[in-house]
């Protein structure tokens, strides 16, 4: 499914991207923890 124009707007929106940066870091750390403990 191709990204919509709203998705593309979010890709460029720096405030949203800052939020995604935080979320991605947490997601990756959680996934690494899950992988190490599973």
């Amino acid at each position, binding site marked *: 499914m191709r990204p919509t124009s709203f998705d593309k707007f979010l*890709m460029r929106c720096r405030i949203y991207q800052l939020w995604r940066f935080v979320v991605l870091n947490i997601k*990756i750390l959680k*996934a690494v923890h899950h992988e190490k403990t599973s």
Partner: protein
Amino acid sequence: MAKVVIIGAGFAGHTAAMYLGDAIGREHEITVVHKFDYFGFVPSWVWLGIDAVKPEHTIFKLKPIYDKFNVNFVQGSVTAVHPDENYIVLDQANNAGPASLEYDYLIIATGAHMNYDATPGLGPKKFTQSICHYDTAIQARDAYLQSVERMKRGERQKLVIGTGHPLAACQGAAFEYITNIHHDLSERGIRDKAELVYLTNEPEIGDFGVGGINVVTKGGRIAKGGDLIEDAMDEFGIGKAVRRGVKEVDAKKVYWEDFEGNYGETDYDFAMLIPQSRGVTFKFFDKDGQDISSKVCNPGGFVFADGIYGLPYEDLVKNANAWPAQYYNPTYKNIFSAGIAFAPPGPISAPHTTRNGTVITPGAPRTGMISGVIGRVVAFNVIDMIRTGRMTHRERMSEMLAVCIASNGKSLWNGSAIVMIIYPIVPDHSRYDNKEGRDMFVTKVERGISGAWLKQMVETTFMHKFRGRIGWQFIPE
């Protein structure tokens, strides 16, 4: 006192050396043998290839790091391993002539040997460029800058980036390189002078040798991560030539065969094509001097580990446990292989044979994070063996997480990146009851400037870790 020898100081070997040195370096003898006296941060060579980073910023000297960890360092190339008598032979040891090194445990972490000869005309000594090694990445940068100069003079240039062999791996690096070229040419104001073509052996865009990455969308539907990547390529005006196995290259053209068995050619002015990779280039000899390399390695030179080999692909996809867990050699249990050096039991992507009998299949990726994780697992198992005689650590690629960040420009202001989180790398259909065989809550693909920040953060923290600076153990591989 046990003797541990590590051949290779890339992501896997260097990680193993640091964990081993930290845990048992004072009581036991840890030695690293590496061809070069530096560690190269391979992911940055994508940027080196477009002159976005200085070469010296992507490497650092190994010896000062190993001195901190009580690890011996020998610069040299291994020519033979004698596993019955537990020693290796080097052609040069710190430029002091041939030498041999005894071991109790041997870790082979030689990375990928670029097999340019598998494709006639391929490679930096012939017609195409490669960003796979430090010196060749510098050469690729110089060739790229020459192309840039021609574009500045008003000439049109065709740049072909991708894979240079039907069985090549590392499509991610090629994809990242071409998107960085797009970004760099746009910044230089000459993007309209370049035609960019991504030529790949993948069955579809976004396969990356892991069989593609399906994700759950916000609406709860399953979507192909490849769609996001394809969309980015369309936005960047990058031409797509998929399902193509490169057979030969000359000074002007790349000759390929496609999945349907049709032959064709693509002309180019600048080409960076990833070759087929090979495993170890040295031989193994038994106590009688007989070459036993075929017992230890597969025909590609990759070292057999504790996986199940020889399964047809249909059975392999159903058996995630066929992938090695502890990375010891079944014939010589004191020999471990880490990172790219271990022999995968097969490809992750479905293999394809053309009507002419050519197998076109992207190889299983084992670089970066995967190499680092295996290096850590192997180091912990060697420590276990020395301390207790029993290994307790295991991590199959079907249990392993991978985070891949494909940047599009190095800038923190107007760059971006595609972040791919894949768990597990090898689908495990017995554990995850979905078509993908993956944890769909963890597996993700997204694009934006946050990816560029993440990439920069990863580069900084990884260089910190690999330099063994304070808190290095807490930074994940």
